[in-house]
């Protein structure tokens, strides 16, 4: 179902903003996680965990959801399709995994932020941080971004089937697509 050019550009802009916002927010979360990990000062650990909880629920999760949804719409609304090209499939799988791990991890972040708020200074200073999750998440998001920019060649068996079945339609779509 091809989208009108204006709608496609608006959706693309939204998708880029959300994806880059997700990546930037994850980088900021990593900085807070490292600060909580290396610092022995309870005030810094508390502030970092509260910041991680707030940025996680109110920035990272919304951006992640919107990036996922706009990516789906962009794939289905353009000739790229969702399962025709390997790079789209891999980006979809990585994005879905990242979103799932994020949603499963955030309750733990909230629990530890609650602990950081209520624990005494000695306990708070030993609470530690959160480095592996944001570091790995950031790596995955960078891989997804590179895939999206580079768009490496390769048609899936489904894409090959669709291409041989509807060569005229796809040629017409490509010719009609705005540059």
């Amino acid at each position, binding site marked *: 179902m091809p989208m009108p050019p204006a709608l496609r550009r608006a959706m693309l802009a939204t998708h880029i903003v959300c994806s880059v916002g997700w990546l930037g927010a994850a980088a900021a979360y990593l900085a807070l996680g490292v600060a909580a990990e290396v610092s022995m000062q309870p005030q810094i650990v508390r502030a970092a965990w509260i910041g991680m909880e707030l940025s996680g629920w109110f920035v990272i999760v919304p951006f992640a959801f919107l990036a996922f949804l706009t990516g789906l719409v962009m794939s289905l609304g353009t000739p790229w399709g969702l399962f025709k*090209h390997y790079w789209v499939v891999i980006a979809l799988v990585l994005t879905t995994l990242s979103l799932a*791990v994020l949603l499963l991890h955030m309750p733990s972040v909230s629990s530890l932020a609650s602990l950081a708020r209520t624990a005494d200074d000695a306990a708070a200073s030993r609470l530690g941080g959160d480095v592996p999750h944001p570091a790995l998440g950031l790596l995955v998001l960078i891989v997804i971004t590179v895939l999206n920019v580079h768009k490496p060649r390769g048609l899936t068996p489904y894409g090959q089937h669709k291409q041989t079945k509807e060569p005229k339609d796809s040629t017409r779509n490509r010719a009609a*697509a705005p540059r």
Partner: protein
Amino acid sequence: MNDVEHQPGEASPPAESSPEEKIRWTAGVPRWVKVFVITALGVALLIVALMLVSGGRHGPGRHLPSARFDAPAVYNARAASVFSADDASALSWR
């Protein structure tokens, strides 16, 4: 991020390409996909190994409600006055 400036025609064999060119485009799984999948599996195995070496307390199950890790439950089970540093370090995933 599907770029409208970069259309799928650039990632598919051109309509006027030779049969050899079409075979090169569509035959089998591209090498970059194989390399990517093998690398991803290697990284996943490495992460699993690291988690097992570090005590095996981390994994997807840890995020589930039934998991042993439940900071509020652990915290509420004890009075704040007896909350010790050891408890706090046990709750972190270091």
